């Protein structure tokens, strides 16, 4: 009976197109990411920490994407006021992200996404008359240029605008979608790894192979993070110079070869390989599409994390003995109250010659890579007045991007302004491509955009602080501490805005330069891989305990993967001896180093 019911009504409909009766008022909230047919629309969860929700986006690279559809049940027939939560993502002065909403085949009068206002808020869609138990909703993209919509609210009995303020909005969501009421316990684990990039995947595999019961939670449908086909950054950092040859074995398994950055062929990045390796681990449970947004702590110990499915909005709770923050952003550490640092330290503070004169908020930026491919016939691309403006004097004459396409640099906060960063990258990519297609026709007439990343490849955000904070001196002096683990080889590679780009786009730079400071292979102490104040929290990846300068070298993905391998081993020993991550260092270091060296 239940199975039949599921066949008829997909899960998303059952759980999340819910209603609430408030006196005489009926409200139906539809989260667009739960539309049962997405068409060409994609789910974007990157701004969850800001919006507390995912949303749907029409990422068509300038070609309208296929319609998204949903069937919504209504509690009562009658007239409903319709509200859409959306924005104009490029209001310069009016953005291109235009779309229509159809209710039972009839378009609502307004065209959305062209308000000239970049704030997420509710827009009136007028009124509809519901004459049946359910209606069909169709989102029609009009441009292919990243129109977006978070939710649709149907309301009778009141014309009041729904709340835009976050606390009230959370309350509305929770009540109408039954979020917390539907929370599901996912199990109790030895190690809960949050973040399924290269570091997190390696940590989970490493621990699972040592017999720990492991949960790996990833907020995208794919594994690999910046190395997945959604971002397409290649793996860097050498494995063959390791002081301990045992480290790097799992990284090697995940490594699909080097297709460079932004390769137009998605398959080059080995998504399937990563899945297959993880799925083969019997002790490892994988939870994709789950964004962790809450940590339950007690006496500086993480007891559980709560995540929300970025598509169905199913709430999930994971309890565990140890947790690993492999989120890149240090999300779990932040939620749990771990000490962290963001931005640059001063020279005076760290004694590093490469540190900034004054401490500030500067971080390396985020890339949205892109590539074009040759096509048989001449194609066109529209003018993009809402994008960055280029001219003969300044444009980037490239058929494909590389790492230099990067926005951030302290102009934007890489966590709270992740959406603006991605959108700035898109305005640079589309504006430049429009210039090339319309003004350099000899070269670009027969080329089309093959791929543009809508998921940002983030380089830097929070750094969680451990018992040791790795510095430039540790690196350049090649210090080998008793707990030396991962060998790192990448240069100290601290990007800055390209000088010419700064001249033309002051405070709006989207193109980077760097100066590679070469280093001899050096080691990262284990004490950089666990939190100094959250007693059961490990970290691996770019958010480990380093200064900004040292991070410039540790941040590359093969190196991050090896950190994951080490965390897996440490978690195993911690469990074995019923101790903390710090306890492994303080009481079981010889055994731990034996594991790494063996």
């Amino acid at each position, binding site marked *: 009976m239940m199975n039949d019911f599921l066949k008829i009504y997909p899960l998303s409909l059952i759980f999340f197109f819910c209603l609430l009766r408030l006196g005489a008022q009926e409200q139906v909230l539809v989260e667009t990411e739960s539309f049962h047919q997405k068409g060409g629309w994609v789910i974007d969860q990157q701004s969850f920490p800001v919006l507390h929700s995912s949303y749907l986006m029409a990422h068509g690279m300038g070609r309208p994407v296929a319609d998204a559809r949903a069937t919504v049940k209504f509690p009562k027939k009658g007239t409903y006021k319709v509200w859409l939560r959306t924005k104009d993502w490029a*209001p*310069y*002065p*009016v953005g291109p992200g235009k779309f229509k909403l159809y209710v039972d085949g009839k378009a609502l009068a307004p065209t959305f996404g062209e308000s*000239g*206002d970049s704030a997420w808020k509710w827009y009136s869609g007028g009124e509809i008359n519901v004459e049946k138990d359910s209606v069909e909703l169709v989102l029609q993209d009009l441009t292919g240029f990243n129109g977006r919509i978070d939710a649709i609210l149907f309301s009778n009995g009141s014309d009041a605008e729904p709340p835009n303020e976050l606390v009230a909005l959370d309350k509305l969501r929770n009540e109408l979608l039954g979020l917390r009421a539907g929370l599901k316990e996912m199990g109790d684990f030895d190690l809960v790894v949050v973040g399924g990039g290269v570091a997190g995947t390696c940590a989970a595999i490493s621990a699972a192979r040592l017999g720990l019961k492991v949960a790996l939670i990833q907020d995208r449908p794919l594994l690999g993070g910046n190395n997945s086909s959604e971002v397409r950054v290649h793996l860097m950092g050498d494995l063959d110079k390791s002081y301990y040859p045992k480290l790097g074995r799992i990284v090697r398994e995940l490594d699909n070869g080097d297709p460079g950055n932004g390769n137009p062929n998605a398959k080059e990045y080995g998504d399937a390989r990563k899945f297959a390796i993880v799925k083969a681990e019997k002790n490892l449970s994988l939870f994709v599409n789950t964004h962790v947004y809450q940590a339950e702590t007690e006496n500086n110990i993480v007891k559980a994390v709560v995540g929300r499915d970025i598509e169905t909005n199913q709430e999930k709770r994971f309890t565990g003995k140890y947790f690993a923050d492999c989120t890149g952003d240090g999300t779990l550490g932040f939620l749990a109250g771990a000490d962290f640092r963001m931005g640059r330290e001063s020279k005076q503070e760290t004694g590093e010659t490469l540190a900034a004169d004054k401490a500030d908020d500067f971080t390396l930026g985020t890339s949205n890579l892109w590539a074009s491919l040759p096509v048989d016939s001449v194609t066109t691309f529209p003018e993009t*007045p*809402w994008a*960055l*403006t280029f*001219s*003969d*004097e*300044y444009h980037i*004459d490239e058929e494909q991007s590389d790492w230099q396409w990067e926005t951030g640099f302290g102009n934007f906060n890489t966590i709270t302004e992740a959406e603006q960063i991605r959108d700035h990258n898109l305005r640079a990519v589309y504006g430049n491509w429009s210039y090339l297609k319309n003004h350099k026709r000899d*070269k670009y007439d027969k080329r089309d955009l093959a791929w543009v990343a809508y998921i940002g490849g983030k380089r830097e955000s929070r750094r969680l602080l451990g018992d040791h904070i790795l510095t430039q001196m540790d690196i350049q002096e090649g210090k080998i501490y008793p707990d030396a683990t991962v060998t790192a080889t990448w240069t100290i590679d601290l990007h800055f805005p390209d000088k*010419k780009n700064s001249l*033309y786009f002051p405070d709006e730079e989207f193109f980077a330069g760097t100066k590679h400071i070469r280093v001899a292979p050096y080691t990262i102490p284990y004490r950089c891989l666990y939190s100094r104040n959250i007693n059961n929290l490990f970290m691996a990846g770019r958010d480990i305990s380093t200064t900004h300068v040292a991070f410039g070298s540790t941040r590359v993905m093969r190196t991050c993967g090896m950190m994951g391998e080490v965390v897996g081993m440490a978690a195993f020993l911690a469990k074995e001896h019923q101790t903390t991550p710090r306890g492994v260092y303080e009481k079981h270091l010889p055994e731990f180093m034996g594991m790494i060296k063996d």
Partner: protein
Amino acid sequence: MKTKFYYGISLFIGCLWLTAVTAQEKSEKYTVSEAGEAYPLVLVYDRENDPAYFFRDIFTPVCLDSVCKPVRIKLFWDLLGNYLRYEVPADEPLTKLDHEEFTPEDHAQLQAILSNENSLLKDFKLEDLVDARTQHLSDSVDAVTGATKNTVKSEVIEGALYTCYTLWHLVHGPVMNEIQKISQTKLDNQMLHRFLRSANFHYVYFALDEVMDEGGVIREGFFPDVLIVLASDNVFAARHVWQRINLRYFAERKEQEELWRIFVHSPYTQQVVFLKRMKQLALDPRVVRLVTDYLPNLNNALFKQTLAVLASQDSLPEASQEQLIVYLTSTDKDKAEAVYEAMNGHAQLSENFNKQLGIYSKP
């Protein structure tokens, strides 16, 4: 390195003579000496008898150590020494490794390489371009089996590394200065007018530097040309002008109207730049009307910045004030609040405006 052209070279202009190349085109041939060798550099005039471009015929060995191959090519520069293009004789094509001819794609790539004034080739010595550990020379100088270093791989054509390197340094070498020196002797007002109206942005900036001093004061007779730059598609040049031009040129109604016309037709980013400085202008009442008439076309961000321009005026015409009052009671709360924030406390408002500001209650 034994290539024969550059570094530590003293240049001089040799003899000069005029010659008619064709019935339509006049040209002047200069002899330039470089590293002890003289070569002709030709300035070609257009049909209006204005200097148009330079070219140089080159027959050069491309060498590494003692192995050389000849390359025949014609290189073109604009009047400021910026590289334009090249031509090769049909019967003496450019070749790569093993005498393979350049493909159309190779030519496109060579043009891109030579056009890139900031190429990595600039900072490299020829011997740095290949990995010394694996370098082997074969019969052809481009046939180096050693891996071209990754850093310059995208800056050269595979199998034609030395050709790219040699030509890039010829194009961006001392000849650029030589061309600029010759052009300087031709510089007159007519050329500056031409430059300011040119699609070549190098010419535009060069002429702007000539006609506009540090205080943004423009040489007599050039204001109309500078306005053309301000209104041009090149947003960077337009921004350059607006950030430097002395605002005394926009003290009168006529120029203010022209400025507003340019504003209305400019891209968004340039409008933002315009508004930042427009606050310093005392606008004619009729121009203020143009501004308030245009308010409905602006998004919230530009609306606020434009209000700042209006708020900076000592007084506003009655009609403009009435237009602003309407926003105070508008359903668009953002715009209502913006008008309130900008105009509340302004010293010269009508009684009605002050009354409406008093009634307005913040959301």
